């Protein structure tokens, strides 16, 4: 379960204080599929990164499975991410000099998994996302859709209970975007919690719950996705 308790994130910009997130209170149950929508600069990505332990709040607490993740040090937070959270980025963020298989092996390597087991797991995951024949391809040798699927396989490597996706379909054509959302639905059906930032109304509509943000505040929380971003 993910929770935010009165979370505020503010920045100093040209002697002015700018609130990226303003007193957000939020509870996301295990197994939920939440889409975060709202205009640019509304605080969606800030909220997502805070849930992932990547950005500390100015005020308030963020809890993962009941544990306050910013009350521990950065290395303990890195371990929490490694064990519980999978990130998906709009620009995929694959390591450019590694092959598809090696990219999927990176989280396993960080988790201390043996080389043989890493290779087996990476092949299995790439086959699952339909890239069993692209194991040795580097990111530049793959289409954007294939790159995002490698990123999905990498995200699944350590079997995370929480998936945080920042505009996962933002760079994809409608057909590939549909494929990616279908994968998210599968992952959610497996019991994983998904929080997805999106500008795409069709993608948002596939979530079980939609949160709308505006000027750093959660302005609506609807169980069915009927909001146009």
């Amino acid at each position, binding site marked *: 379960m993910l929770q935010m308790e009165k979370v505020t994130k503010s920045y100093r910009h040209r002697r002015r204080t700018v609130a*990226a997130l303003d007193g957000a209170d939020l509870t996301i149950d295990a197994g939920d599929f939440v889409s975060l929508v709202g205009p640019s600069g509304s605080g969606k*990505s*800030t909220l997502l*990164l805070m849930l*992932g332990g*990547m*950005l500390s709040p100015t005020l308030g607490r963020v809890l993962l499975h009941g544990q306050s993740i910013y009350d521990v040090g*950065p*290395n303990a937070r*890195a*371990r929490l*991410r*490694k*064990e519980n959270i999978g*990130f998906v*980025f*709009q620009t995929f*963020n694959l*390591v*450019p*000099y*590694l092959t598809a298989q*090696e990219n999927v*092996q*990176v*989280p*396993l*390597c*960080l*988790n201390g998994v043996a*080389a043989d087991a*890493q290779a087996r797991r990476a092949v299995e995951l790439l086959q699952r996302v339909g890239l069993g024949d692209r194991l040795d391809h580097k990111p530049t040798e793959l289409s954007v859709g294939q790159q995002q699927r490698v990123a999905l396989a*990498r995200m699944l490597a*350590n079997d995370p209970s929480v998936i945080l996706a*920042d505009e996962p379909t933002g760079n994809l054509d409608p057909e590939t975007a549909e494929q990616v959302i279908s994968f998210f639905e599968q992952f959610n059906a497996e019991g994983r919690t998904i929080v997805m930032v999106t500008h795409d109304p069709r993608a948002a509509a596939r979530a079980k719950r939609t949160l709308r943000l505006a000027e750093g505040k959660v302005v609506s929380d609807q169980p069915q996705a009927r909001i146009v971003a």
Partner: protein
Amino acid sequence: MNLRTLVWRELFERKSQMITVFVGILLGITTVVAIKTITHYSEKAVARELDTLGANVLVLPKSVSLQDYYSADMHDQYLPEEYVLRLTMSDVQGVDNLSPKLCVPVELEGRRYTLTGILPKSEFSAKAAWAGAGIFSRPIGCGAIGVGETPKPEDKKTLVRKRVIETLEPDEALVGSDAAASLGLADGDTVSLLGKQFSVVAVLPETGTVDDSRIFAHLHTVQELSDRDQVVNCIEIVGCCKEISAGLVDKVNRLLPDAKVVTVAQVVATQTKINRLMERLSLIFLVIIVVVGGAGIANYMYANVHERRREIGTLMALGAESSFILRLFLTKACLLGVVGGVAGFAIGTLLAVTVGPRLAGVTVLPMPVLALWAVLLSVAIALTSSFFPARRAARLDPCATFQEV
């Protein structure tokens, strides 16, 4: 997949950068190794040249005042011969050779000559060796050692240069060039001294000193013929100049409190000065290379960290701890350092061996011990100059690296 794979793949992903920094390290280490090797052998050559000037420490009876270095043993004061054994059995560092002497005037064909008793090295060094200790039981680190020369059968004429010979039989004599000329003596002749027949084993080359009019024989024979029991006039010590300047004279003084120990200050000062010059030259190059090379590596690493910000942020998002990021960059630096050090040693040695003789006019041989120093220095420079860039990488704010906030 492990840390090494990541480092290795990244190095070859940016080949031109990797080659640039590698060549920088390589050139630096090559220069240090080449200079160090050439200066080492130049220093040795200078020491050998100074060694040809003869003994540089004299042990004399307390009452004797030194007027002429080459005739320091021509007086009628005596030291016990036991002092030689005391010296050989001591732990004094930096003694290359010892030569105890006893001078007795002799008259031949109406002219006065000096018969000098000398003790061959085989006799006193053997005594020390039997005891398993002493100054000859360990290698001598001074410049007087030959370089790359194969041992040859002893030429008695080397007495002139080395001040000591290995062996001398009781009935053998060495004759100075002037004495040989005026007495008409040649190798293999016999000469009668103090009533005993001696065989001339060598006529010594001209030295331009009083040694030219001397005749040398075994110390114990001269003692016996002159009725002087186990005494000497002087003990010459061929010492290592570095050790002399580090206090060899004081140590010998403490060992032989009843004797006077004097040194030829100019000889010592010259070698010490040359050694210091060589050391400073090497040090200056070393400092330049450390600073320039270090700055180059640091610059490369900062650029590399900047270029890889997104990758670092991604690794952090995937759960990499800051220590992993730090190791990622330091392992890369270490790898570059090791390869640069090994290659730099090889090329530097090759350069020194081929160019050194033309530049310094001395034989230059490889110095394997420098391999270790080259690698250690190279790795130390690479790690030190990469530490701050690596730390910056480990402390990066992952959100800032994505520029998505």
